[in-house]
């Protein structure tokens, strides 16, 4: 075996995304192919995808995608779920056996709705209840992990190269109006199934290229609000931050972007638009612990849209392009050209400048 220094491993994570503003459905094939030219950005220790609009027949139910270490764990978890949810469908997530993906856990999905009696007695809305249940399972049930918990969306992830992971999960057989993808090159956390991206809570999913140096500060802050970081990697906390800012605090996407990728104080002071200056001052003052430092380029997926964002210093690459109803986002332009050779208006968003794309009102659910 060659050690670092004897061998150069040219890598650095890859992200990619596509969305149809008209809500037109695309199979997962295009997003799988987009990862191929960026193969060398990953090292085979994680790949994953999120698809939105893929479960129209169960759109009113939460789709819980789960990893279990043993059949026993699954039985135990199922009994736990049955106490508080109506389970309308419970099945193995279909996969293809391929030689490059091995050691898979038991991969299951449940389409569920929280029991009204449980919600009434706890006085919680269903999103909050589902979020708390996900935290509880991931933190307290050894060997069981919920890796996707939104409605009409799902994530699919594994240890392997992303293009293989897509084939493993048969994503060519799903159709969604938006997709995100990730190829992983873990730097200081383990490459394991639960640690592959995307990281999700409810319908929020994050794919991330980078490494956040504020992880512990962010994590400690989020733990005050019941979020438990259990997946041994930094990206997880970004997902919870977005859930907290968007769902709990009710911030807009743009405001949430200004919290996590806040401009330097000197940049805020130099702003000539005084309302904008006041808003940024307010957000940095109220949420100082949610500033994310260190390099990142992320794509946040949610029901009805995507948001792409770079860290304020822009220490990672990200390119955006368009064609007709579609918008493409990727770490490299080559990935966009693979999805759409004639993509137009190729541009690189600035650090901290969110790119928000929403599906036309009324067509996505």
């Amino acid at each position: 075996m060659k050690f670092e220094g004897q061998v150069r491993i040219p890598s650095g994570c890859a992200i990619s995304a596509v969305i149809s503003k008209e809500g037109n459905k695309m199979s997962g094939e295009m997003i799988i192919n987009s990862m191929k030219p960026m193969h060398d950005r990953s090292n085979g220790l994680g790949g994953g995808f999120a698809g939105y609009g893929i479960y129209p027949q169960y759109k009113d139910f939460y789709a819980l995608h789960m990893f279990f270490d043993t059949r026993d764990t699954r039985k135990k978890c199922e009994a736990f779920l049955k106490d508080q949810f109506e389970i309308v469908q419970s099945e193995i997530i279909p996969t293809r056996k391929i030689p490059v993906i091995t050691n898979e856990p038991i991969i299951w999905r449940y389409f569920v709705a929280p029991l009204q009696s449980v919600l009434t007695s706890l006085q919680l809305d269903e999103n909050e209840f589902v979020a708390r249940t996900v935290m509880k399972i991931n933190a307290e049930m050894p060997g069981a992990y919920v890796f996707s918990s939104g409605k009409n969306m799902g994530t699919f992830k594994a240890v392997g190269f992303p293009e293989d992971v897509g084939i493993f999960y048969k994503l060519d057989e799903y159709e969604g109006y938006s997709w995100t993808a990730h190829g992983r090159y873990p730097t200081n956390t383990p490459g394991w199934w639960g640690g592959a991206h995307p990281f999700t809570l409810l319908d929020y999913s994050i794919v991330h290229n980078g490494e956040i140096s504020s992880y512990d500060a962010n994590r400690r802050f989020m733990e005050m609000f019941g979020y438990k970081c259990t997946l041994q990697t930094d990206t997880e906390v970004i997902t919870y931050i977005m859930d907290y800012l968007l769902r709990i605090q009710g911030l807009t996407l743009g405001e949430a972007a200004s919290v996590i990728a806040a401009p330097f104080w000197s940049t805020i002071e130099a702003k000539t638009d005084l309302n904008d200056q006041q808003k940024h001052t307010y957000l940095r003052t109220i949420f100082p612990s949610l500033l994310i430092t260190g390099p990142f380029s992320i794509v946040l997926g949610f029901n009805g849209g995507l948001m792409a964002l770079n860290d304020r210093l822009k220490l990672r690459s990200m390119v955006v392009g368009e064609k007709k109803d579609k918008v493409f986002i990727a770490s490299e332009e080559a990935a966009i050209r693979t999805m759409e050779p004639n993509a137009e208006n190729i541009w690189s968003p600035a650090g901290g400048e969110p790119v928000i794309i929403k599906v036309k009102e009324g067509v996505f659910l």
Partner: protein
Amino acid sequence: MKIINAANLNYRAVNEALCNADKDCMIESCCGQRFIAAGMSDKNITINGIPGNALGSYLNNANIVVNANAQDAVGDTMNEGKILIHGNIGDAAGYAMRGGKIYVKGNAGYRAGIHMKAYKEKIPVMIIGGHTGSFLGEYQAGGIIIVLGINTVGKPIVGNFPCTGMHGGKMFLRGNCKDICFPEQVTARYATSKDLDEIMEYLSEYCRDFTYSIDKLLSVPFTVITPDSKNPYKQMYVAN
């Protein structure tokens, strides 16, 4: 001329084909292959499609023409030769280059010319036709960076924090730059005709390459930025 079809070839195969090719060669259907022409000498390479990161890294003395956009780290640690891009380029172009030329028709991403340096007769030159992202010429130690701001459609010619940590070389920005905030350790002033004489050779070449009129280019004043040796660079991120 040898034509290399890069479709379905990985970066290693593309570079091997280049090594074995004639002096003049063309890459077709390029899509993200990295390190193209790394360290190469005595070649004239035309690329159709999107070359991957670190195009022409350690380039010794070859000419590369890209008929589209290029990605990150174009000309990383380049030594000699010329890279001509007909589109835009990504981040960190010309990282630590110490010789040769990078001429870009369109825009550059963040950190263009980061840690560019010079050595004796080696003076690297980078010309960006459009606008650039933040941290232009970060830690610049030598060489010449020129940004022309053609067709920037209302966007500023550079983003935030240009010349952070600059301690050598020269930067020329076309325009009066009155809205640009430079750090304290550099001096920005209007370029004199003597200053412009120094870059006239490069500007003329650039105009020939991209069929621009040099007179029109020079009808707007240039700002020249140099490090102020009396007030050297101290810090940007953390006060130690």
